[in-house]
């Protein structure tokens, strides 16, 4: 047994960390936070040059062909640095959907552009409030044209193309859903930027009016693909969350060591020590669940659905817990715009919702464990 990343993978993590600490300091994140840019274009370009965007994309499609374990270690660093780029939408959602269900021509068209940083992609799934569900999809597809509205779509305002979930049957069962690829720069697509709690990652509303679309995967198989994409993205996003949780913990620890009150470092008070110890515990549990998710993802194991849900839940809890208590350890200073604590708090709460909420994944986990148990 070697339940750990390999030395090569750890080396890649170190490289990614070094690169991001230089190219993506908090100041860079704030440029997007303050609305001065929709995303960090230079960073995006740099990530492409480092080979990070296509790390899990096969070589034949312009990627590094390294694999998903490598993508996990990079995801962790992206979360740690709060990288303000459309990484999760393009790499976890769009690229994964293409790799799972795309035709050779579709892969050939988009994957190399993803790897090179030329194309931003996303998944347009949600239509207003609620969790992933075939019933909630009302947008229609007929004769290769889409009509309807998607919101929120992550990075929708800067994306070049989207994988869109549409209703092709009548009732809203799994088999009534199909996926389509849409060029968002083409006619019939209206894009509206939406304000959200984490401005370092955009959200948009996409309205399709007879927008031209080509099928991705077979008709009626859309929901099955989405489920797989969400599971895979859940593991990858969980690594981002763990990276963020770890950084929030470090920030709290450092502040507790430096800050003096009542003549002693606040980290010498048990109340503060124990807050930080509990943060460490939740971050550690999440990391371990994520490692199992990474193993399942990289081996396409039958355990993936269960492992993905556990990683997602645990990492969501840990990041929310660490981000909010990092502010608490900082006291008033943690509640200023000037300190970086709130950027982690915003990201923690935004990533908690993106692929479906905590309640949704809790329910899914037990459903999956139950089915396994019955089998």
């Amino acid at each position: 047994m070697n339940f750990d990343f390999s030395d090569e993978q750890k080396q890649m993590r170190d490289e990614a960390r070094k690169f991001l600490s230089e190219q993506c300091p908090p100041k860079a994140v704030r440029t997007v936070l303050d609305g001065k840019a929709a995303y960090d274009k230079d960073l995006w370009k740099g990530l492409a040059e480092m080979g990070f965007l296509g790390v899990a994309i096969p070589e034949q499609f312009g990627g590094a062909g390294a694999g998903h374990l490598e993508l996990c270690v990079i995801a962790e660093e992206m979360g740690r640095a709060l990288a303000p780029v459309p990484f999760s939408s393009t790499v976890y959602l769009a690229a994964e959907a293409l790799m799972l269900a795309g035709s050779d021509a579709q892969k050939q068209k988009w994957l190399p552009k993803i790897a090179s940083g030329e194309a931003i992609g996303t998944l347009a799934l949600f239509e207003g409030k609620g969790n992933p569900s075939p019933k909630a999809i009302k947008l229609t597809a007929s004769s290769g044209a889409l009509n309807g509205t998607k919101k929120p779509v992550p990075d929708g305002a800067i994306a070049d193309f989207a994988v869109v979930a549409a209703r092709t049957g009548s009732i809203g069962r799994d088999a009534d859903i199909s996926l389509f690829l849409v060029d968002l720069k083409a006619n019939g697509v209206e894009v509206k930027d939406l304000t959200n709690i984490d401005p370092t990652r955009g959200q948009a509303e996409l309205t399709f009016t007879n927008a031209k679309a080509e099928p991705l995967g077979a008709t009626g198989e859309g929901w099955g693909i989405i489920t797989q994409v969400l599971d895979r993205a859940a593991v990858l996003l969980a690594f981002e969350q763990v990276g963020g949780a770890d950084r929030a913990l470090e920030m709290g620890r450092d502040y507790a060591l430096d800050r003096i009150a009542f003549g002693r470092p606040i980290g010498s008070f048990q109340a503060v020590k124990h807050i930080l110890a509990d943060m460490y515990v939740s971050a550690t549990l999440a990391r371990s669940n994520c490692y199992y998710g990474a193993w399942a993802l990289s081996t396409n194991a039958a355990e993936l659905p269960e492992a993905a849900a556990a990683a997602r839940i645990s990492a969501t809890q840990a990041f929310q817990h660490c981000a909010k208590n990092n502010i608490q350890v900082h006291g008033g200073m943690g509640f200023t715009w000037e300190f970086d604590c709130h950027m982690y708090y915003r990201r923690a709460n935004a990533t908690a919702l993106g692929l479906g909420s905590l309640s949704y994944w809790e329910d899914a986990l037990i459903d999956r464990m139950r089915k396994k148990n019955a089998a």
Partner: protein
Amino acid sequence: MNFDDTPQEAAFRAEAKAWIAANAPKQYEEELRKSSLGRTQLKDANILEVAKAWQKKKADAGWACLHWPKDYGGRGASPIERVIWQQEEGAFGKLSAMFIIGHGMCGPTMMAFAREEHKRHYLPPLASGEKIWCQLFSEPAGGSDVAGLRTRAEKKGDEWIINGQKIWTSGAHYSDYGILLTRTDPTVPKHKGLTMFFLDMKSPGVEVRPIKQASGQSDFNEVYFTDVKIPDHQRLGEVNDGWNVSLTTLMNERMSIGAGVATGFPELFDFCNNLMLEDGPAIEDRSVRSRLAHYAVKASGLKYTSMRAISALSKGERPGPENSIGKLVAGSMIQEVAMYALDLQGAAGVLSGPEDAELAGKFQAMLLRAPGTRVEGGTDEIMRNIIAERVLGLPGDIRVDKDVPFNQIPTKGRV
């Protein structure tokens, strides 16, 4: 055990109710009622002006600062009458937010320590809202350790020269006066070298800079002092006795009970009552119900704890630690409630723009404001210490800086 007024109380309530019905700015009532943590604003009016007008109207009719003596702009009312007034004032009470510091802390400190002529001069316009006061205690180096402050006051002739920086000053940008805690002797242990003053916020050398909070709003300020002059007759209490003076201020803060704390529960219950989940109404989902029940009993527990405190007050008993409990419970609860409300919205829970977000982004605003509630006015940890020490009689924390001259206390944890 009953919720009935005594005949006297009933008469007072009737009078208050009638006056409010005739005089309150009704056009804002609905908007004020709906406002919750993270945003109290008016759409079509400047809330500062509306608040000042309402306070002035109250003062002219004898309804301002009810528990203050008449000579200083109050009504000489009993504590329970003050509570009845608050109940009747209802949502309009939210207009008093900007006066709370002045009325609850600065005023009482002035009453206890200022010269009589100052009291007669400064207190009535404070009561009527014509002048706004702020409180200048916290410092960047202070935080929970208020007495660790560094702002210096040095005596020159009949004046004191102030240099330093304060932080977390609510309303400093619209305040006319402030009470200011300074260090006058750094060579003695920290609690022993402090002195309190009040000052004109328009004095030369006072600079106010808003703090942008994590939520993006600015409710607080930094205040910088550069060679600011304060005449000695504006000193409150003896030189180097400022810590005791500040305890009066802080004790008075604890006296204001019954106002209720925001828990987020009513908003969450209302939300769940109207929310459809995929499988049916949210309120019929057993996991939602379990969470709601958990919050419901905390919210009702706080509400009835407050009522017990009011009853004790009306019998002349001193308020207990109800405020500490309320703050401790409500602070983390409102944060959890906001997170849960977003959770129930699913992926769209991230949206916070008034037009696109559920309920105009009420819960999103609550989420972003909530971390502040667990810190402002004493952190959760300080509240637990207060309960443990003052209520349960447990020993204080070990104080390594107790007998150390202030200027020998370390200022940095790691070198």
